[in-house]
């Protein structure tokens, strides 16, 4: 059965229309940037600097102020939106697998971007950038996007967000929103990667997906914990106290993601892998306020 069927496409098209009104809350809303000489709407004046186009000199104000002033315009830049999709082995866990929800979210966001005449690039990563979808610009290319997402599989080794961010910043020079869809299980932490994106001029957004088996593992007694990313097996006796402590630690981890995002003005959404598809769709497209969203 195809992951994105006709019903899904219809729902995407419909929801992308009705969520335009809520575009400000959408995860892929771009910020209007003032571009001197760009756009058509004059927003102000500034001192002339050598190299400015003579055509934008406001001669009326020059006559009044007896100095050279240049008009500034505010134009909506060509919106480049990037999606970084985690395909590390840890995304295969959960019921349903986290990777399925991640691809659905990527499809929703991508469709929304293409429907709003944006330019979309999708990068897939695990311990680095694994593969990518070349930039696409039109809604008619959404089928290509969906096929690309459908053809993805889990690959790579353990998650390495920092290396992925470095490779991404070297490969994509044009700034824009970068939506990181991942479980953020990186031993080095998620902060270095997001810091890299922020300081390189991108606008990172985070969609964290977790499985209920990770929030409440329900393990007790003697078990062998097998890390699907590192392949390391750890024998342990999980007591009730340890299970409770794990749940507390997991909540702290989620809270740390939200706290970091709030501190740095990064939009953050967190979903369990079994969240209903409609709720995810409405939340991602901004039509519904997420329960765990900070921005």
């Amino acid at each position, binding site marked *: 059965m195809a992951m994105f069927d006709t019903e899904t496409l219809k729902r995407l098209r419909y929801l992308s229309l009705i969520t335009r009104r809520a575009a400000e809350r959408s995860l892929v809303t771009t910020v209007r940037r003032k571009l001197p000489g760009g756009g058509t709407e004059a927003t102000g004046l500034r001192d002339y600097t050598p190299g400015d186009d003579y055509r934008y000199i406001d001669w009326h104000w020059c006559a009044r102020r007896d100095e050279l002033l240049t008009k500034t315009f505010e134009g909506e830049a060509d919106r480049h939106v990037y999606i970084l999709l985690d395909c590390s082995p*840890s995304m295969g*866990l959960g019921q349903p697998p986290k990777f399925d929800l991640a691809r659905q979210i990527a499809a929703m966001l991508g469709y929304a971007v293409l429907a709003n005449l944006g330019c979309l690039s999708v990068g897939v990563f695990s311990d680095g950038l694994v593969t990518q979808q070349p930039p696409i610009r039109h809604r008619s290319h959404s089928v290509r996007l969906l096929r690309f997402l459908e053809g993805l599989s889990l690959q790579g080794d353990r998650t390495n967000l920092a290396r992925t961010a470095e490779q991404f910043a070297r490969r994509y020079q044009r700034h824009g929103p970068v939506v990181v869809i991942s*479980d953020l*299980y990186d*031993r080095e932490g998620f902060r270095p990667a997001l810091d890299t994106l922020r300081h390189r001029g991108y606008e990172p957004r985070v969609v964290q997906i977790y*499985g209920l088996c*990770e929030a409440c*593992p329900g*393990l007790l*007694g*003697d*078990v*062998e*914990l*097998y*890390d*699907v*990313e*590192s392949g*390391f*097996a*750890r*024998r*342990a*006796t999980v*007591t*009730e*106290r*340890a299970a409770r*402590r*794990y749940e507390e*630690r*997991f909540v702290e*981890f989620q809270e740390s993601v939200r706290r970091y995002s709030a501190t740095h003005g990064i939009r953050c959404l967190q979903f369990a892998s079994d969240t209903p598809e409609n709720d995810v769709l409405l939340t991602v497209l901004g039509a519904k306020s997420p329960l765990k969203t900070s921005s």
Partner: protein
Amino acid sequence: MAFANPLALLWGLLAVPIVLLYRRKIRLRSDPVATDMIWQCVLAEQPRRDAWQRWRHPVSLAVQLTLLAVLVVALAEPWIPGPRRLVLLMDNSASMNATDVAPSRLGQARETAARLISTLRPCDRAAVLSCGGVVGVHCNLTNDHAVLHAALQAVPSTRENSPPGDAVALARRMLAEPTTCSIILLTDACFPQAAELAAADDIEILRVGRPTPNVAISLVSVRPSPGNPHACQVMAEVSNFSDTPEVCSLRVEIDEEPVPVIIDGRSADRLTLRLLSDEHIQQFFAVATAGASELSVQLDQADGFLHDNRVTRAIPQATALPEADKGPPEAVETVWAADLRAPSARSTEGDLRVPSGLGAEAAAIAPASPWPSPRLLLAVLGIALLALEWCFYQRRWVS
């Protein structure tokens, strides 16, 4: 310690499923996790109990097996016997010289008795009697194992064949308390009273040897030949104590020199005999003696008992008497021959069982002991182990 109900020890086989289930239990299931970085932090916070974690399951198994052992032993009704007094009756009759077992039946009886003596406790005493011919007391009741072993070696082999009735009576007189005493008869049971003795409660028969076919010369008679002073007439009876037909040859030696025999006017170096099972054949023949003094009749038969395959007789001197004065023929002399097919005895070779009645009798007198009953002690120990095992699986112990 002995058991009044030793069959209950078979409950010990329950240890096999317990061990199998234990192995199944300790096989850890593998749970995949997305990342172990959280588990690593959580487990690092746990108090270190590596030694306990390592030994928890083996200790649990040990407790379970100990509990099972206690229950099994309790079901087997253990009892601690008092000092024993034992009389070893060594059958040293002629049939015990048979070599169907190495080195001989008597030798094997000595080895069996030696093993029996080595199992005696310091408080136990034993005596050694021989009962093949004349009853002999080789060692009175003593707990000195060296003396007992020496007495065993001192039991001689004989060519007599007396039933052990007198020896049994003497042994019973030596043992005053029948509850803690027993008589062990080590014999091949080649005597008619074996079944009767086997039925007695205070006698344990340990049989040595195995049923062995035997062909024997059972009767030999030598008389002078009337009218020929240089010859004699011989009557020999050969018996087959076997369950199968046997073929053997008979020959005669004069002063250890083989001589031909004359039968029906014909001369032959040896006589070939075909005997059915339990058949006795009498052969009459003449032998030229020529003034010799000793005549031997020999069977060429390699059976398990060689002593009855050769009979030697003195040759009587002929007297010139008138025909009318000739007396009756010389009386036929019976030769002892062994039937090595022993009647069935109650015990088998090497079976060192305690007499059957002894356990019940000892159990009956057990309450007289000042110590608590072993069953009560085992029950208390079992309950304690059960409580300990229950505590192992309490979560508050684990967490």
